[in-house]
């Protein structure tokens, strides 16, 4: 195997939460004193926790937006980077584009690297399209002569030839994006880093843009790093994928597997016999969820016709309130199938102690898919006492419909009765 074109070693980035304002000078002096003079650890990074945006930030807390990322790419690789919002994708791109520098670790790369965190960086509304092509092109590291030689191609690709000598402020937003992308597409760097810039522009242009990126990687053997939430785009463009979870690398490999991993991970890990014991992992001041069991109502396998029985054991810590249990079923592709609740303590008569609630999802409702469950406890159907998303996950097996063996599309697969009257 030849030398990788990009090599990332132990890359981490620490961010500070909360407002940067008053007190920063004293913090800075304190840190400078501790680290440079006393040679101790940075007093503020100790509280640094895993990047989980759902937890409320402590004041002045530091957080690892990215932690210990290792990655090697060969020339011609097209890597898709996927992950939830706040998983560290943009931070990684910023480090790669040298917009900010890492806290630890190292990135080495060969050749020219261009990043497209935005299209049309440096566009000035008062300047014409032509002037802005030069402005934006040089910002991305092109030489003037290089732009001049490609000007016709760029204009052609963008489709705004008619407006070339009109100030960009008169352009529609779609035209601006087209022009911006056209310039970027003609950069010809060895490494291209692309953020979700394709989200804008019409369908025709998106198709054109993805086609251009495929072209760049396939015919010229360029390396592309592509970040997107659009799984279809990632799938069609990338060969390999990396999943980021809370700033760390969760998975790396084949793109199909990566997308599966991401979608399953979104639903948390399943469990072989669908029985979860939480200990004190799902506990707060109001509720402690002890265990959840998911069983087929009829038969031995969870499938479309079996129905689903969910048994939740929990310990209630608040008495004399009106209390309910609510659960949500979410499909693998993040679609909320339903939200349903049960007021188990009416008229402020909740009791301390262990409870067991069984919920039954009727047969012939859920389609074959992977589902995860969000569990909530509420007071008076208004206040949230406890909430844990993706607390468990389960899979519904398919049952073929007539002779069609494949899984039918759609979120639900109800049992429909048909009636035929034929007067033939």
């Amino acid at each position, binding site marked *: 195997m030849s030398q990788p074109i990009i090599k990332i070693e132990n890359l981490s980035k620490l961010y500070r939460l909360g407002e940067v304002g008053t007190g920063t000078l004293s913090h800075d002096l304190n840190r400078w004193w501790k680290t440079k003079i006393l040679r101790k650890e940075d007093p503020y990074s100790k509280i640094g926790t895993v990047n989980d945006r759902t937890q409320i930030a402590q004041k002045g807390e530091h957080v690892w937006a990215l932690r210990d990322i290792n990655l090697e790419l060969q020339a011609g690789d097209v890597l898709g980077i996927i992950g939830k919002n706040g998983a560290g994708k943009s931070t990684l791109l910023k480090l790669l584009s040298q*917009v900010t*520098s890492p806290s630890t670790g190292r990135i*080495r790369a060969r050749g020219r690297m261009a990043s497209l965190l935005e299209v049309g960086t440096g566009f000035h509304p*008062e*300047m014409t399209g032509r002037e802005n092509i030069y402005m934006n092109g040089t910002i991305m590291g092109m030489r003037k002569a290089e732009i001049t030689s490609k000007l016709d191609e760029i204009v052609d690709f963008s489709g705004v030839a008619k407006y070339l000598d009109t*100030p960009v402020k008169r352009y529609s937003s779609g035209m601006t994006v087209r022009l911006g992308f056209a310039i970027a597409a003609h950069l010809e760097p060895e490494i291209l880093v692309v953020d979700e810039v394709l989200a804008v522009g019409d369908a025709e242009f998106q198709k054109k843009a993805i086609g251009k990126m495929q072209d760049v990687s396939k015919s010229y053997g360029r390396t592309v790093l592509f970040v997107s939430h659009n799984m279809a785009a990632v799938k069609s463009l990338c060969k390999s994928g990396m999943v980021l979870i809370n700033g760390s690398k969760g998975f790396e490999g084949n793109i199909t597997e990566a997308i599966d991993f991401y979608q399953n991970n979104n639903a948390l890990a399943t469990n072989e016999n669908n029985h979860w014991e939480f200990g004190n992992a799902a506990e707060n001041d109001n509720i402690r969820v002890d265990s959840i069991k998911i069983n087929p109502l009829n038969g031995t396998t969870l499938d479309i016709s079996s129905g689903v029985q969910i048994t939740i054991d929990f310990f209630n810590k608040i008495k004399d309130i009106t209390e309910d249990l609510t659960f949500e079923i979410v499909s693998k592709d993040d679609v909320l199938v339903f939200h349903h609740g049960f007021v188990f303590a009416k008229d402020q008569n909740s009791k301390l102690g262990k409870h067991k609630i069984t919920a039954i999802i009727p047969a012939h409702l859920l389609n074959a898919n992977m589902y995860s469950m969000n569990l909530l406890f509420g007071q008076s159907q208004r206040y949230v006492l406890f909430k844990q998303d993706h607390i468990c996950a389960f899979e519904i097996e398919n049952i073929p419909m007539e002779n069609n063996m494949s899984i039918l599309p759609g979120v639900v697969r109800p049992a429909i009765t048909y009636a035929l009257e034929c007067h033939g």
Partner: protein
Amino acid sequence: MNNYTIDITPKKHLLDINFKEIWLYRDLLYMFIKRSIITVYKQTILGPIWFIVQPLMTTAMYVLVFGQIAKISTDGLPQVLFYLSGIVIWNYFSESFNQTAHTFTTNAQIFGKVYFPRLIIPLAEITSGLIKFFIQFSFFIIIYLYFIFSGNTIIQPNWTLALVPVYIVLMAGIGLAAGLIFSSLTTKYRDLNHLLTFGIQLLMYATPVIYPVSTIPEKYKIFIQANPLTPILEGFKYAFLGAGHFSWDALAYSGGFMVILLFFGIIIFHQTERNFIDTV
């Protein structure tokens, strides 16, 4: 084979400044200069004439307030020439300082999206400022020649006219250096922005722009002479008008000051540019 061309690490050496890279991005420098020139007079009627209106009005006001009302001496020189020469060279300094001091805050949007040597921006600012300076300077020259040819004998241009380019470089250098330091500090401590505008104003009064050094009482002279901008202002006026004072020592003092300030300015700027996007 281990020929990596890009190497991104958490810390860089203080003096590790890639001047070669700036050279590679010279076309970008040109585009930024062009941009700041073009955009000033798009959709204006007078266009670049605005560059002349400002010193013209300021000179008129100074003649009225400092010349006629306060009756501050101009060493016997025509007041118009005395004030105009001071304003023209001072403007270049304050322009360079002011524009470069806002490098990070006004360009945060671009800096957050793409990498290029950040030093390009302040360099473009002082260069486009230079173009503006030359327009104002030409205006001064026209007024100056008018006085010469109308037979004014008090004005005595001399050989130090050859040093005028040096004065311009010194003004640009000190303005740039101060701006670099200011822009780096304002990314984190915004308070300094408040200081900037009136700070430059106050500095003008501590510099012999509207008065000659000869009018300063002896015991305060040392403070005015400690100001590294004083020799530049005095030298510039001396070259064209012949009044005032010129000394090589004072010039060397300004030059030394510029070199040291520029040295620290570039180091601080370079350290800031790496992470400023996290704090801005």
